């Protein structure tokens, strides 16, 4: 069997999985591949690529999960990728997911594939919902009309998976692709056959064009629709006069996208009339539950979304808070002591003791906490996405987010960042477009997290006293300006997300019960993907920080960071920072919780650790609050303190946030761009505040 398939295919079997969003594509992907998944980017594109493997009858199949798109019209990178891949000749077969309960709309995608020579199977999903709605599909009839296997599925209950696998082995052997003659016939014969001469002309003229594996009629129709990619390909492969002839011919007939779309639906309606029996053809008002109506309500929709996001955040905290507090409050200090003791007993050098106990250990614990937190956020918001609620959130926040060039769902990372930036960045996962997701991530970093306020209130109490509310108001106003500028800078120049942005045309999927199995699986695979990257990045940054700040004597003056800080002090003083404030600013990119400990050490008040990274072990640093306060008050001017608070406020949140950006944005380059941008802008803002403040204070 195996050799038979291999000889038929002559190459490893690659299955491409395609279809519109909300057709259960990812459930099928998870069902087929299980944990054998890989997440990356499509080469040269800002689009997430998911692939996986499964074995059936001793043969290994690679599954490529193509981006979910409503059509293949080459308007977005997702559409281009899906189409290029399908015609590339690389996949051995294609599975097109169709939602049986929304047949007309989801068959549109198939109408764009009809004519490609790739062996195809149709996964007719959500058969249970269709039956409930009184839609009876004659699958045999549909198979006959389309000329390819149609597999009935309820992917959320893993029904139809084995049939799909079996059908795939068959279709790869028989190489059957979607019968498109009926569709082309409609294009030719509709509207008194107005397009017939043009299509026949194009069919002969385009016979020599090489774009991929398809029937020439497909190319002719795409050319008639003036598909951008197809026109570019034709232009590139033809001489100028030849191309001009084609364009002249196209200009002889009316060009209207809507006409062509309605031809496709004509084909679909024909298919349905011959294979589907709908119990009641009476017009019925769409029935929406009270919650559905509330979720899109003009006045109550937004407060409801705020509450749901807050609830989601709190639930994720409830899941991991107990473990987090035991980990960092009890286990870490004990293991910390144990590590020091153990290493001392075997006579390890002091630097080794320090690096193990102060850099590697707390960073590993931080990574563990991060993974736990990310997992619970993904789980909770995965449920909200799965049941269909988040599309409603996007709906009610569309207007507000649109002003920043962002998708309505961006409200989720924004709100969650007010609790924890790492949670916010993870929350951006609900935005499908990777470019839009990156933009939401980078803007969400402006939001101050809860841990920030400890330092802000400490410094404010020393320097600003009764003026603290004024300072906070100033920071709030700066936050809004910062968000707008950052959205513009990244949206326009760095990510280019604004080009892809379009007004809202979005499906609100019907509410349904959560598919627990699929959600849990998805969360688990994600966690596995996150774990390794999180450990490497967090331990890595921590090690760098350790190398910079380690001193065997415990005096900061013996560390590298001291010499660096001292050397650039003349420059940093221009921004109002002496070497200690500058160093504290840099180190605060590591974590906000540890910052008070770092400041205490810098002002000669903290002890007990040999490096800044050691401050991550909460109980390891000891300092007296009063001594620390007076040391700061005596050597820092109010203008400098104001500059420091500003720069600190807008600095990169923490190492865990950096690691999360890497994971959710899927790019190291983008991660460093964001980090560099934030650190630079924070310093500049601090500098401006300092310069202005010195005029008055």
């Amino acid at each position: 069997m195996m050799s038979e398939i291999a000889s038929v295919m002559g190459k490893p079997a690659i299955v491409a999985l395609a279809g519109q969003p909300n057709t259960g594509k990812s459930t099928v992907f998870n069902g087929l591949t299980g944990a054998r998944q890989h997440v990356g980017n499509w080469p040269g594109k800002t689009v997430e690529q998911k692939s996986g493997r499964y074995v059936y009858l001793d043969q290994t199949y690679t599954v490529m999960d193509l981006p979910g798109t409503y059509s293949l019209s080459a308007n977005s990178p997702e559409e281009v990728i899906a189409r290029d891949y399908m015609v590339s000749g690389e996949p051995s077969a294609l599975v097109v997911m169709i939602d049986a309960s929304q047949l007309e709309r989801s068959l549109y995608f198939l109408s764009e594939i009809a004519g490609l020579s790739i062996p195809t199977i149709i996964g007719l999903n959500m058969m249970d919902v269709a039956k409930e709605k009184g839609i009876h599909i004659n699958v045999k009839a549909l198979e006959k009309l389309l000329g390819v296997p149609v597999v009935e599925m309820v992917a959320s209950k893993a029904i139809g998976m084995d049939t799909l696998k079996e059908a795939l082995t068959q279709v790869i052997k028989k190489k059957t692709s979607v019968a498109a003659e009926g569709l082309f016939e409609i294009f030719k014969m509709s509207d008194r056959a107005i397009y017939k001469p043009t299509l026949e002309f194009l069919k002969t003229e385009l016979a020599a064009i090489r774009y991929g594996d398809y029937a020439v009629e497909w190319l002719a129709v795409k050319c008639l629709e003036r598909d951008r990619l197809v026109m570019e390909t034709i232009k590139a492969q033809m001489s100028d006069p030849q191309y001009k002839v084609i364009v002249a011919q196209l200009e002889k007939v009316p060009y209207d996208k809507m006409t062509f779309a309605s031809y496709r639906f004509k084909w679909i309606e024909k298919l349905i009339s011959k294979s589907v029996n709908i119990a009641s053809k009476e017009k019925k008002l769409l029935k929406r539950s009270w919650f559905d109506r509330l979720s899109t309500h003009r006045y109550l929709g937004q407060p409801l979304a705020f509450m749901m996001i807050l609830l989601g955040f709190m639930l994720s905290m409830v899941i991991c808070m107990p473990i987090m507090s035991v980990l960092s409050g009890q286990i870490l200090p004990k293991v910390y002591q144990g590590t020091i003791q153990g290493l001392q007993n075997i006579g390890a050098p002091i630097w080794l003791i320090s690096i193990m106990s102060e850099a590697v250990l707390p960073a590993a614990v931080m990574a563990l906490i991060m993974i736990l937190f990310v997992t619970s956020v993904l789980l909770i918001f995965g449920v909200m996405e799965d049941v269909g609620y988040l599309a409603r959130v996007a709906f009610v926040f569309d207007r507000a987010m649109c002003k920043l060039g962002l998708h309505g769902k961006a409200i989720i990372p924004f709100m969650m960042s007010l609790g924890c930036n790492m949670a916010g960045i993870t929350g951006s996962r609900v935005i499908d477009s990777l470019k839009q997701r990156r933009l939401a991530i980078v803007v969400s970093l402006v939001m101050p997290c809860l841990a920030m306020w400890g330092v802000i209130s400490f410094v404010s109490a020393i320097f600003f006293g009764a003026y603290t509310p004024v300072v906070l108001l100033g920071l709030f106003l700066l936050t809004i300006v910062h968000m707008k500028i950052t959205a513009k800078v990244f949206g326009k120049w760095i990510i280019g997300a604004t080009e892809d942005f379009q007004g809202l045309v979005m499906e609100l999927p019907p509410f349904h019960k959560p598919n627990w199995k699929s959600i849990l699986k998805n969360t688990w695979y994600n966690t596995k993907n996150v774990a390794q990257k999180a450990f490497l990045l967090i331990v890595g940054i921590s090690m760098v920080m350790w190398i910079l700040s380690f001193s065997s004597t415990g005096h900061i003056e013996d560390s590298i960071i001291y010499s660096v800080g001292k050397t650039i002090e003349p420059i940093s003083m221009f921004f109002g920072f002496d070497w200690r404030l500058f160093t504290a600013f840099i180190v605060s990119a590591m974590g906000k919780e540890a910052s008070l400990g770092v400041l205490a050490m810098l002002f000669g008040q903290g002890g007990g650790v040999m490096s800044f990274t050691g401050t991550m072990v909460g109980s390891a640093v000891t300092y007296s609050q009063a001594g620390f306060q007076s040391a700061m008050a005596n050597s820092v001017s109010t203008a400098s303190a104001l500059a420091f608070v500003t720069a600190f406020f807008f600095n990169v949140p923490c190492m865990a946030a950096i690691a999360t950006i890497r994971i959710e944005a899927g790019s190291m380059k983008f991660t460093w761009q964001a980090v560099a941008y934030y650190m630079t802008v924070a310093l500049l803002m601090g500098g401006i505040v300092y310069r202005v403040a010195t005029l008055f204070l």
Partner: protein
Amino acid sequence: MSTLLTELNEKRYGKIISIEGSQRFLDRAGAMGLTPNTEIQMVQNKKRQPILVYARDTLIALNRKESKGIMVKGVE
């Protein structure tokens, strides 16, 4: 008699007469099933919010600005 889609009252049915707008919008609307002669139901139409229409078994949210390019004819 045809009117702008945005002027169709809630719970009323309409038939799409024509759709105009950017190429991108037309592609997207077409793929969602909003084509001439499609019957739609206005589900929600409130100022300062996108509108919600039900067409081809699908609940679709549409930007207010772009839905002004859609002309419909009221259907009983």
